[in-house]
């Protein structure tokens, strides 16, 4: 399959290794990966902060870059949610039937990575090897908006050598919430503190999630505490093999 990779502005700018890992995994499974250079951002940060007008050009950019791809894959549940759940409303508000039509075409073909692997390709063993104790945090977008279910856990369980530890209170929010982390830093930190405590209680060496936004937030607190716990995106764990660890 020819797959359009939507790497997301956050991963593009701050966590390029995640993007590289997605490419590695998909090519390992025999697919062809394109990176349409016209892509930028899904507009979620602006949309969620109330700047909906400013998000419309980003939606236009997205459909222009990705129209025509059989599948669009992104390593972010929150960005996939933006495209699938909110682009239609954005197009309707913009009063742009052309945009609405383009969105109706591309949104259903836009998948978060774990959903694409486990439910679309129906593959859970992607050939990964990662001999470490890992715990998984389900981001709120993946859990409640996209409803990815246990797709990420099935993928992690198939990674050779990986010791999957339960995360206590896993379904609790991490407290990032986009601009919430900056507008309400005290509450954000208070919520994060409980998530960090749970991660440390799990005994894991690595915290894994399918969203770099959550990882940046929880990881930043784990680093501040000198906890010794690393954070890795799901794609980066799946990309590791015996050769590349």
């Amino acid at each position, binding site marked *: 399959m020819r797959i359009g990779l939507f790497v997301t502005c956050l991963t*593009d*700018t701050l966590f390029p290794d995640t993007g590289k890992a997605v490419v590695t995994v998909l090519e390992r499974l025999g697919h062809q990966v394109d990176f349409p250079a016209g892509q930028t951002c899904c507009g979620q940060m602006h949309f969620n902060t109330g*700047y909906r007008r400013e998000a419309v050009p980003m939606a236009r950019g997205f459909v222009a870059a990705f129209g025509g791809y059989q599948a669009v894959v992104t390593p972010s549940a929150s960005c996939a949610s933006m495209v699938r759940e909110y682009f239609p409303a954005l197009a309707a508000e913009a009063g742009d039937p052309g945009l609405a039509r383009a969105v109706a075409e591309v949104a259903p073909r836009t998948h978060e990575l774990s959903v694409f692997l486990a439910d679309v390709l129906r593959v859970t063993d992607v050939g990964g090897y990662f001999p470490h104790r890992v715990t998984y945090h389900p981001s709120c977008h993946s859990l*409640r908006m996209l409803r990815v279910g246990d797709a990420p856990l099935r993928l992690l369980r198939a990674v050779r050598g990986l010791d999957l530890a339960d995360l206590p209170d896993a379904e609790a929010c991490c*407290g990032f919430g986009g601009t*919430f982390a900056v507008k309400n830093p005290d509450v*954000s930190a208070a919520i994060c503190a409980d998530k960090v405590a749970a991660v440390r209680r799990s005994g894991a060496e690595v915290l894994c999630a399918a969203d770099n936004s959550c990882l940046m*937030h929880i990881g930043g607190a784990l680093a501040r505490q000198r906890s010794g716990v690393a954070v890795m995106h799901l794609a980066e764990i799946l990309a590791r093999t015996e050769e590349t660890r």
Partner: protein
Amino acid sequence: MTAPGGSMPTYLGMPSFPAAARTAVADSQLRANLTHATRTIRAKRAGAVAELSDWEELRQAAKAIKDHTLAHLDTYLLRLEANVTRAGGHVHWAVGADEANAIVAGLVRAAGANGIVKVKSMATQETGLNEALAADGIGALETDLAELIVQLGHDRPSHILVPAIHRNRAEIREIFRRRMPGAPAGLTDEPAALAAAARAHLRQAFLSAQVGVSGANFAIAETGSLVVVESEGNGRMCVTLPRTLISVVGIEKILPSWRDLEVFLALLPRSSTAERMNPYTSTWTGVTPGDGPEDFHLVLLDNGRTSALADRTGRQALRCIRCSACLNVCPVYERVGGHAYGSPYPGPIGAIISPQLRGVTSPADASLPYASTLCGACYEVCPVAINIPEALVHLRAKVVDAKREKNFSPERAVFSLSGRVLRSPRLLAAAQRAAAASGRLVFRSGRIRRLPPPLAGWTETRDAPVPPPESFRAWWSRTRGGSGPPERAGPRS
């Protein structure tokens, strides 16, 4: 259509949420009380809900019934008025809080009383009824144990269902010892002893009261019946024993018919107190000779509800049946409690109702839609399926749009500029190169410990990532050129 909003006089001048939250988050007693209470009820609720295999069907039916009612609200209100009147009651209409308070005060004086007993009513809290009556020389005695605790403690309620959740038993004992006339000497802080003290304190008031004031959980249009759902029995006392009963009810509390109670009484107790059914539910229609009040008055309250009704996305908030399940699962509420929301309606539902009833311009109301991480836990537990995250994001746009008239806003400038960068691949790539350069030069240690405002809040408690030397798109362009796959297979870099 511009309908003037409602007002909540007692809550004027509340600070913005972030400011109030900063204090609350640091209050260790409050944090301990909230954590214990919300986690307990959360688990119980899950068990109560799991018992019903058709919970989702009940939820969808409730949502449909409420949406239908709102779509025909005028018809149903007229039907309710006709049926209450036919059954011997009187119906009054109040556009705003002051009007509602004045109607109640007038009725109390006409009954020749200078005091009332009150059963918990969010609507009267919203209008500031007690304060308005006090200004008129009329005493209002709160009879819900929690409202009594709040009243004696000169405090404000902090939760829809359990208004004194921010108090533990030791604090409650102190309040009773110091402020409850006739509190027994040597009162312990055992919950049973505290409840017994409240019972003794209120009993005489109940048995001699002339006027009772209540709200209602539901008002049935088809029959003119009102329904009050409670646990302690003080509701029964207030709606049965006095000669005059006044019920202040928001116009959105109406249901079309008697049979709809089979849906809502299945959903409400399990969602709120996590029981199959609450101890007492009372229904009455107008006046019943020989049984209960001889004089019944229903005050229908708008106070901004019609503003919410005019908002296609926001009106779903009017489905609310005040169960408080959303408060108990909210990670934000759990850390700050109800006072930080600056409204009689706290938590997730408060964040979408308060700005719609009061408008989005006050510091409190402009900040409430942002008092959320959009985690969606509230939507999952709402028995009438209010999509609270959707409503929050919608209200954020309203707040932003209301400010667009203003000349300059630093935040808008940042979002405008970043918006231009983020929609242009060229500008984005340029910004990434600049960030990578600063990363190489300045942050060689690999960690950022402190960021300047407006991002300083981030680094108060977290390290920030250093921009890597090469963005993803730069890497792709360098190693793969163009949009397509590599021209020849080789080791990945």
